[in-house]
Every structure is written in C-alpha cells, then in structure tokens.
C-alpha cells in the first residue's frame, strides 16, 4: 500500500491492573486501516475486541494502560496527545458507533440535541445551525420525518431508529475513522440487514474508514474488505475478507467458520464440527501459541514457541507455525465433533439404569406428542385496582389463535423475530403462562392450560431449556443437588442408588465429568451451564423438551456444542423438541418441521425443506434473505424490510401488510389472508396465490422496497 493509512496500531499491548499487578490483556496487536476501508475485527466473547476497539480511540478504563506500541491517526501518534487534544479528535476525526444505542443516548435530551451538540462543540456552530445540521443528518440516514424525529427522546424510537440516530451522530462531523462496536447485535435480523446496507452506503458516501467489531462472521463478510481475527487478546490472522471465507488458513479461523450451522436442507444427519476446550483466561495463557491447547494440528513446538504474525502473500497474515502446510493443502485441519469422540462411555445404546424404561416405540410413529389447538394469550388485563385508579388499558395479544402439533421424535422449529409471540406460545405449552384459549393434548391426554392443574405425570413429560445461561441454574446449589432434586421430584428413579447412577449418566450424556456434581454454577462457563440445564431437562426422560433460544447467548463455537448435544439427546432419550429461535441457521440444523410466526400469528408452516425453498411466505423469504451468510458461494437475495413493524393491535388484515415487499394492495391491509396449501402439509398464509408467489420468487431480481424511508411507527 502506498497510500498513507488512516489508522495504524503497532505492536500494541494493553494491561489491566488486577489487585497489585498488571495483567497483559491485549498482546502485540498490529493493525492498519486504509482510506475508505472497512476493517472487520472479529472474535468471541472475552477475546478483547471491544477493549481493543476503544483503545484504538485511546479510550481506556481507569485501571488499564498501554504498555507498549503506538497508535497513529493519519501518521500522528495518539498516545502522546493530552486529554484536551484528544477531546478535539474524539467526535470529530474519530467517532464511535456503540453497541446498544438506547444505552448510549442520554435519556434526558432529544436526539436532535445530542446530534447537534457535536457540531456545536467541534465546528463552533450556533444552536440553530447545529440543529438544522442535525435534521439534515437524520435525513441522510433515511429518516423520512427528520424534523419530528429530532424532537423525540431516545426511548420513543425503535431500535433501528436509535441506531440510525447514533450513526447520524457519528457522521455529523465527517470523521476520518469510525469505530463500530457490534452496532447491530441488539437488532432483529431484518432490521440488521437494512442498517448494514445503510452503514455501507453512508461510509462509502462519506469516504470514511471504519473498524467494524463483531462476533458475527456473516456480518463481517458482508460489511468489510479486510478483517482481523482476535483470540485471547492476540491477532490470529489478518487478511482480505474474500480469501478468508474461501480458504481460511489459521486453524482457529477454520474452526470458527466450520462451527456455524448452514441453512442447509436435509442436514439433519450431519454433526457440527466443534473446537475442543474453552478459551483460556488471560492469566492461563502459556508461552506458546495461545490457540495450541485447542488446535487439532498443534505440535509440541506450538506449546513452547510463540509463532510470529507472518505475511504469507500480499496483505494476508497468519500467526501459525504450520500455515505453510495448511496453505499447501498437505495438512488438513479437520474439526470433528470433539465431544462425540470423547472416551467417556456414552453411546451404550438404550438406557439401562434405574430409570423406569419407556416402551420402545418404533421410529417415525405417526403419532403426535403434542397437539395445541387454537391457542391465544393476551397480556395486561386490568385488575380492579388499576381500573379504580383509571390506569390506561395496555393489553397486548401475544398469541392469536395458533395451532401447533409436534410429531414424536421430531423437532418443531419455531421461528420469528422479537415480538412474534414464539416465546409466549412455548411458555403457554409448558404451562409457565396460562393460555386464555385453546385446547392442548400431550400424548393424547388432555393438557390443562394452568401448570397447577397438570398432574405430576404430565409435568414430568414436558421440560424446558431456558435462554439465559446466567440464571438457568440456582447459584446456591451444586450441580448434583439440583439434578438430584429434579430426579426425586419428578419421580424418575426408584431408589437412591439409581438417582446417583442416573446423575452420572446425565452428566456423561452432556459430556461433563463426574466431579461436576460438587461444583457450583459460578465455577462453570456459559456453555457448561447450558449443558447442565440440558441434563436437568432430560433428567426424567420427558416426551417433549421445549428449548427457548438455548444458544442465543453463546458464542458460535459453543453454540455448535449445544446443538450437537441436543441432537444426541433427542436420539438417545427418545424425546421431541419444540425449538425456538430467531436464528434460522440454528433452527435448520435441528428442525424437521418449521413454523414461522409474525406478531402472534403463524405465517407459514411445513417441513424445513419446504419452508426454505420456494414458494415461501414473503416474510419467510425476507428473513432468509436477511441472514448475513458466511458461505462464499451463496448468492444473497436482496430483500429489505424498510418499514417499521406496525404494532397497532386492532387490525383485520395480514399482520405483515405495510412491511411486505410483495404486497398486492388494499386487500392485504383489510382482509385476513387465507391459508394456501402447497402440498405435503406445507401451508402459507398469504393473499398471493402460490403459483404467482413461486414465479415472483424464482425471478431472482431484488425486490424493490415499498418505501424509501422509514416512517416512525
């Protein structure tokens, strides 16, 4: 590169003070970002990517320091600058687009004011000049009613709008470089797709360089030209994006990419490759390669000698002793499902311990585990007291007249964005919420809506895996205590000896060693906690396990482990799943049958294969198209839902009307769409006839969005 880079970091080391000593967190990181370049910084949680990103702005926690190296913006070192000098650079040349826009905006000021204060500060504009500049910026980020939006307070805007405001704030001063710190993580996938397009366009328009921090390899691939992979505070590889996804060289990158489930059809027999072990803590890092303990091709040398970050070809750098062999394709880096290969006794056929054996039912019995018919749930009824105090009515119908059947030994995937009602539906089924209407049967026995009305025998047959690993286990009970209690309560073991036997069996089933019995949850990683939660759910061999986003709080490499375990346990324990997720890739890996929900209603259902292929509901189509793919061969359709979701409760038409890119007219707004049968029980709820839908969707041309600008709801 002949051009002067915008930002350079050279051998940067950052330490944290822990007690009385300094612990090295970021180790020897070098990075350059050229003009107009969007540079991706990718890493899992704990890799130090956010610390690094902020440090590049020379913003450090009070207990952190730069112990080595240099950061240069346009060739000028930032480390020698005083605080007032940095204040002139921050917000003018170097801008941050933060992770959670609502938290990053001051709740007490209008968004217009918060954008305007930047130019007032840096360009000395008057109040009115700065304000009209702010409105103009809001227009630039495609907000239609910018004047009105500028007057609003952050909490009055949707997540997507807040993100637009923050990017407007960052671009207001035409900065040299933007640091985007996971800016779309909190957004729904369809909103994320729109915001990513906007970022790309605006960055191009403003000729700004950017560092894009993300854990999502798909997003990095869509956004960036070059990328740096961070692991445990060290750079593992740095290269142009195209090459990395086509042919990754560093074993860690290979493992990461491999562990992402793909939207593949008929993948239900495959297993996801996983990276063994867990990332070491900062203090545990040895003197060799930090990845060596988890690397499938590590040599003895890798444990003792730290590799250098070497340039292999133009702009492509890798920190690995064995890159030559990998690059020459003489050394295959294969990740299998490492858990399946573990030596622990596991696949010893059917259960033989003291659990009361279930009757072996032949595979694929055409029998339903669960039938839920016409379930509805409304939240926010008014109590007498509230009515007395004249509090406003705030009813939300979360689930509207939904019917769901789960086949035996199969997985029903429930897909939808936030607000789709998928979690509420699941909670009604397990009984944590009481459905207002509807009839449910479990194994042909009537299932009362209220948990307290359900007999013990039925309770035992439905268990749940929760989303948040941090509160899924009681912090004051050991793993053994909680499994024991579960077994005893659910009456799953006949004698104390059998209880202990079953606990050991369960732990083995989720690949945790026996000594976990005496551990407390705070000694476990997020993935391990989720594994214990799986063991607990399966303790009494339930017929139906409801998993509510069990992997959404986990890193991809950990997610792969959980998904594999879910697959194993289903086969081994003879259970069925109701698997809820917003992540279509994770769902497609497990589910045989899919239901797509939108605002409390089912839009489409069918086998995974059918739902993923055409014809599909326009909403399903948009969801699939919005997933940022990591597959270099995949041709992305370009469907974007520009409009904000319509939240109004009383509507007679299709809930997706107004956002739907294939809307055909008034009929969509006014009339409830009919169910259309596509064969094999594949059903789509849309006004557009299936033939026509199929024609439209096979066309391949990008769908022009119905609206150019966002209209605030």
């Amino acid at each position: 590169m002949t051009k002067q880079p915008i930002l350079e970091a050279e051998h940067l080391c950052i330490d944290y003070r822990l007690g009385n000593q300094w612990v090295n967190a970021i180790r020897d990181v070098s990075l350059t970002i050229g003009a107009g370049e969007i540079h991706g910084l990718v890493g899992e949680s704990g890799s130090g990517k956010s610390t690094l990103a902020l440090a590049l702005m020379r913003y450090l926690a009070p207990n952190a320091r730069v112990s080595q190296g240099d950061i240069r913006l346009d060739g000028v070192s930032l480390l020698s600058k005083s605080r007032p000098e940095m204040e002139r650079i921050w917000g003018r040349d170097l801008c941050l687009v933060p992770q959670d826009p609502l938290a990053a905006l001051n709740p007490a000021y209008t968004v217009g004011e918060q954008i305007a204060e930047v130019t007032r500060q840096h360009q000395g504009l008057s109040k009115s000049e700065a304000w009209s500049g702010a409105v103009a910026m809001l227009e630039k980020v495609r907000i239609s009613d910018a004047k009105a939006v500028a007057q609003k307070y952050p909490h009055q805007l949707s997540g997507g709008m807040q993100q637009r405001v923050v990017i407007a704030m960052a671009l207001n001063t035409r900065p040299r470089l933007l640091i985007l710190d996971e800016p779309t993580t909190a957004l729904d996938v369809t909103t994320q797709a729109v915001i990513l397009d906007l970022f790309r366009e605006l960055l191009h328009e403003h000729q700004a360089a950017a560092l894009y921090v993300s854990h999502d390899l798909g997003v990095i691939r869509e956004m960036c030209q070059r990328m740096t992979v961070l692991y445990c505070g060290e750079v593992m590889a740095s290269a142009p994006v195209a090459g990395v996804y086509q042919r990754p060289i560093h074993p860690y990158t290979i493992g990461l990419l491999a562990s992402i489930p793909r939207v593949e059809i008929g993948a239900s027999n495959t297993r996801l490759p996983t990276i063994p072990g867990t990332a070491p803590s900062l203090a545990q890092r040895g003197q060799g390669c930090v990845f060596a303990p988890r690397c499938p091709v590590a040599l003895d040398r890798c444990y003792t000698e730290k590799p250098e970050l070497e340039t292999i070809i133009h702009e492509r750098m890798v920190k690995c002793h064995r890159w030559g062999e990998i690059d020459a394709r003489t050394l295959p880096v294969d990740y299998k499902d490492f858990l399946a290969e573990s030596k622990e006794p596991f696949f010893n056929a059917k259960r033989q311990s003291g659990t009361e054996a279930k009757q072996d039912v032949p595979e694929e019995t055409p029998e339903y585990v669960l039938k839920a018919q016409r379930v509805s749930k409304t939240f926010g009824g008014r109590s007498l007291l509230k009515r007395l105090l004249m509090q406003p009515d705030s009813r939300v119908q979360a689930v509207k007249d939904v019917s769901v059947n789960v086949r035996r030994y199969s997985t029903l995937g429930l897909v939808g964005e936030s607000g789709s009602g998928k979690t509420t539906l699941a909670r009604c089924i397990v009984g944590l919420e009481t459905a207002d209407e509807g009839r449910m049967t479990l194994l042909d026995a009537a299932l009362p809506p209220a948990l307290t009305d359900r007999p013990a025998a039925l309770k035992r047959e439905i268990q749940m895996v929760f989303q948040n690993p941090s509160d899924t286990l009681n912090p004051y009970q050991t793993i053994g205590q909680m499994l024991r209690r579960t077994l005893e309560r659910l009456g799953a073991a006949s004698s104390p000896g059998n209880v202990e036997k079953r606990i050991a069996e369960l732990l083995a089933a989720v690949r945790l060693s026996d000594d976990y019995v005496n551990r407390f949850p705070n000694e476990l990683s997020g993935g391990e906690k989720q594994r214990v939660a799986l063991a607990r759910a399966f303790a009494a061999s339930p017929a139906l396990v409801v998993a509510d986003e069990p992997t959404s709080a986990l890193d991809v490499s950990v997610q792969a482990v959980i998904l594999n375990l879910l697959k194993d346990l289903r086969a081994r324990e003879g259970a069925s799943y109701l698997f809820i997720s917003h992540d279509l890739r994770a769902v497609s890996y497990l589910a045989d049958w899919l239901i797509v929900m939108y605002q409390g209603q089912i839009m489409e259902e069918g086998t995974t294969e059918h739902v993923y292929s055409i014809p599909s509901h326009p909403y399903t189509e948009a969801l699939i198209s919005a997933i940022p793919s990591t597959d270099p061969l995949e041709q992305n359709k370009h469907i974007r839902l520009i409009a904000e979701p319509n939240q109004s409760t009383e509507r007679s038409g299709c809930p997706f009307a107004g956002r739907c890119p294939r809307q055909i007219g008034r009929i969509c707004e006014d009339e409830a769409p009919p169910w259309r049968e596509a064969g094999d029980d594949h059903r789509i709820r849309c006004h557009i006839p299936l033939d026509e839908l199929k024609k439209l969707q096979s066309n391949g041309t990008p769908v022009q969005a119905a609206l150019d600008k966002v209209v605030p709801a």
Partner: protein
Amino acid sequence: MTGYIIRRVLLLGLTLLVTSALVFALTQIVPGDVARLILGRDASPEQIATFKAQFGLDVSPPQQYVNWLGRFIVGDWGRSFTGGNLPVRPLVLERLGNSMRLALMTLLLSVPLAVFLGMIAALRENTWIDGLVSIGSLAVVGLPEFVTALVLINGLALGVRELGLPSTSMVPNNTLEDWVRQLILPALTATFVLLGYIARLTRAGVLEELKKPYVRMATLKGLPRRVVIVKHVLRNALLPTITVIAISFGWLIGGLVVIETVFNYPGLGSLLVEAVKQKNLFLMQAIVMLVVTIYALANLAADLLYGVLNPRIRLG
C-alpha cells in the same frame, strides 16, 4: 399527564382514608376508658357520661369513626380533651406553621451541602475526599438526634454561649437574624441526620450514572469533561435526589419529635408527644392526618417534578 395527576390525587385520598382508619383503630386499643383516664379515678358515672356525650364517644366505635370522618372533611376537627377543650384545628395549624419554618430552615442548610458533598465524593471516587465523606456520613447517619442536639448545645457550649444562641428555640419573628438565631441549632441537628443520608444517596446516584454507556458516548463525542459531568451526568443523577428531598420534608414536618422536645420548640412533633401522653384522641388524629397529607403532597410534587424533568415518564 392530567390522568396521572388525577390518579395520584385519588391514591392520596385512599391513603388518607386508610391512615385515618388505622390511627382510629389504634386509639381504640387504649387500655381502659379514655373518659376515666382523663377525668380521673374519682369521676362519677354522670361526669363520664357527660364527657362521652360531649365528645361523641357514646356511640359504637365504627359510628364514632364515621362521625369523626364526616366532621373532619368539612373542617370540624373536634376539640381537645384537655387544656380548656380548645378546638383542635387552630392549635394544630399554628404548630404546623412552626414546623414548616423549621423544616424550611433545615432544607436550606442541608440539601445544598449534602448534594454538593455527595457529588464531590462520587466524582472523586476512592480519593481521600470520598473517604472522608463516606466515613463522615456513616458516623452521622443514624446517630440519635438528642445526642447531636446535646453536643451542639453543650459540647460547643463556649462557642454557642458567645454567639448568644438560645438552647431553647422560639418561633422566629420575620427577621433573618431572628430566624438564624432561633432555628440554627435545631436545624443543624436535623441537618446532621439528613446530611449523611442525602449525601450517600447522591453519591450512589452519580456513581451509577457515571457507569452508564451514554457517559462514555458523550466523552467520545469530544465533549469536555465539564460538559459531560454537568450537562449529561448531573442532569440524570440528581433526579432521584428530588424524591429524597420530598421524603425528608415529610420527616421534617412530623418526625422532629425529639429535636422539638430537646429545644422546647412548639412544633407538631412535640404537640403529638403531649397528645399521646394525654390520650388526646382528636388531637392525635388531626396531627397524623395533617402530616400524612403533607408528606403525600410533597411526594406528589416530587413525582410531578420528576416526571417533568424525566422525558421517559412525561412522554411514556
């Protein structure tokens, strides 16, 4: 917003109703006969009957309560059992005025100082100033008022005498000098109780806001630290302090029993002590109702102010 105010006023009415019933119920458990207690052991049955008839105690307790409530609402707060059977209302209102004066003086002394100390301690977290404020407020918070008051009266005896400050406070006339002279010692005593409390809450509030991502964002927008602190942090951090001040106000009106007793100041609190000792039913009722009303109104005012200053509440 209007709906909100209406709801709050309704709630206030409900609160007062419950409180009055509660207080009335409490007075019913008085061991022995009130009339006999007041008239003495030697009172004749006729005297007692007259007394009961005079004060409406000759009907069933629920009936008594309803009668009292009806009269209270229209402004007839009853008569004192003792001391010449004066009407309760003027007596209580006069004392309320006195209590208000002392409360005002205390708030003027304590709030600015406490907020300032709390702020400084938070902004200089983990420095000696912070330590000093923390330890100081810890030592002072919860120290019984009579101890502080006695230290102020006697411990600083020399200085206080030199200044000519009275150890018995009277209601000040309307000169600033007299206000300071009469009220400074009781107000200082109350300030000691409030200071630690408000300072600690302010410190916690500022520290909590400082940790929020919008502060980092404001800094990284290139705003000078002064602007970040004053415009962004304090604006949000001091909001909860409003509520704290309102709570303190209620306490200052009805809770200064001990301070008023030590300084012989004729406020509501010392009147209540007398009323309790005399089983002076209507007097007690009136004082409690008044204090609760004022406390609730102060809270309402604080909530409204909070709502006006906080767009999240104002705009839902």
